[in-house]
């Protein structure tokens, strides 16, 4: 049976257009990053990457991402469960509130945290009397990172769980399964790809966030400098090669997560095929 767009001419034309446009629009920037990073050879790239400050920035960035993901995961699943499995007044508003981070420009996101938790903010000034400092230290970076990344998991899960409906879970519960078992055995297998994709987006954004972090970080080299901030500083110091070396690292982290996702998908599809 022939489907729409199956005519060989249309097919080839569409594929060719898609490939050419993606190559120009998406692939070329990626190539440019690596081309710039290695423009002075592998050694220079390595010197830039193995610099103490760069290494510290990599460590801090990864730590922030690793702390952000579980928080966003728990929240995303809870919220998706809530708005797709129950109907209650205010559901739609709750669902829109979660989009606030999309609507707030990252610089403003940093600012609002600063205004609240900074030395003059009403929570910040209270913490200050106990000598607790959140802003301009890693907890502040973590807080704004959670703010900007928290919608991703929920946003991925909600449409899917809405479309799937709750019949399977209800059946499981009716048959006597506990809530936790139902979630693990019934819900989780159904949503794992969306969950994984949400985690990947969260991770990508957490690793790469610049605007919000730059406001609350203080950018102290070797202490509160994340990789994107470090990159910008190198760029400002006429060290374009060093900056693009960091950019290449960030792109590499991105590519690795994407590869991990593809690999897991492939393994799962093979398992399904055998079963």
């Amino acid at each position, binding site marked *: 049976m022939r489907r729409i767009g199956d005519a060989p001419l249309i097919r080839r034309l569409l594929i060719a257009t898609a490939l050419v446009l993606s190559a120009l629009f998406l692939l070329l920037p990626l190539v*440019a990053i690596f081309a710039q990073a290695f423009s002075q050879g592998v050694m220079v790239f390595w010197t830039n990457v193995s610099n103490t400050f760069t290494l510290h920035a990599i460590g801090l960035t990864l730590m922030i991402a690793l702390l952000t993901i579980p928080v966003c995961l728990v929240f995303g699943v*809870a919220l998706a469960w809530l708005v797709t499995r129950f109907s209650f007044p205010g559901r739609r508003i709750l669902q829109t509130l979660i989009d606030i981070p999309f609507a707030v*420009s990252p610089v403003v996101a940093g600012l609002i945290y600063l205004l609240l938790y900074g030395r003059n903010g009403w929570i910040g000034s209270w913490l200050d009397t106990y000598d607790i400092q959140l802003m301009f230290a890693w907890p502040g970076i973590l807080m704004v990172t959670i703010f900007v990344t928290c919608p991703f998991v929920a946003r991925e899960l909600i449409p899917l769980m809405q479309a799937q409906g709750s019949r399977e879970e209800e059946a499981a519960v009716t048959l006597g399964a506990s809530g936790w078992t139902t979630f693990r055995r019934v819900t989780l297998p159904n949503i794992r790809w969306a969950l994984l994709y949400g985690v990947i987006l969260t991770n990508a954004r957490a690793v790469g966030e610049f605007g919000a972090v730059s406001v609350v970080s203080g950018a102290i080299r070797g202490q509160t400098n994340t990789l994107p901030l470090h990159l910008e500083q190198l760029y400002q110091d006429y060290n374009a090669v060093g900056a693009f070396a960091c950019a290449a690292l*960030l792109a590499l982290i991105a590519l690795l997560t994407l590869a991990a996702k593809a690999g897991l998908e492939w393994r799962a599809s093979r398992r399904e095929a055998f079963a």
Partner: protein
Amino acid sequence: MSQLATWRTGSTRVLPGFGLSMGISVLFISLVLLLPITGLFGQLAELSLAEYFAIITEGRVVASYMVTIGAAAVAALVNAIFGLLLAWVLVRYEFPGKRLLDALMDLPFALPTAVAGITLATLYAGSGWMGGLLEPLGFQVAYTWVGIALAMAFTSIPFVVRTVQPVLEDLPAEVDEAAMSLGATDGVAFRRVILPHIWPALVTGTGLAFVRSLGEFGAIIFIAGNMPYETEITALMIFVKLQEYDYAGASAIASVVLFVSLALLLAINIWQGRFVRRLHGGKG
């Protein structure tokens, strides 16, 4: 149908975890999202209504709305077409490199915006690979309005692709087989049969891309040129106010972007809800 209806209304009682998920969600939203936002309104409270309107309607700021909205609209439109094409190709066809192309779609999300900005500016400036090709043809991208739209389109393309893709995947083969068997041409069949199905997803994705573009700063600032009245975006106006220690002014402009974006997002959510309801047979 009646069985489905009972299940749906009865779900509140059958499934556990309402309290727990409600608790986590409300606590998180209050602490992480709403509490900081009150800080923004705290700043706004320092302004009288007249001052507020004077700030948000100042000539240069209004010009920046125009630039931002215009460029975001163009970017969203381009993304709607390009994103639809990509989603279609990825779902419907098999070809070498498909996996790679699929993975590439997430790149703009994965790439830090500042990196995207620096890279795009490098590529499209007169001395760059793309700019070197385009500028002799009299087509300048970097430091113009086109550059802004380009950066916006780059950072928001995944929204369209990733929203349309699953819907296209779920579309049963019978739908277009039926259309084709009636003898319609590909174009007509696509418009009459496919488009109505994916329309809501396309609008949602395009809307999200548009909202994202309104707030984008890092990727744009390097390629914009930042000329007053011509290539200044609203996010830059906020940044300028911050440099002047004018938190209230920054909050005022930020609140405009926030309200517009939230209104759009609410509209998208309602639209999405309608769509889902229609899928479930008009009930709920």
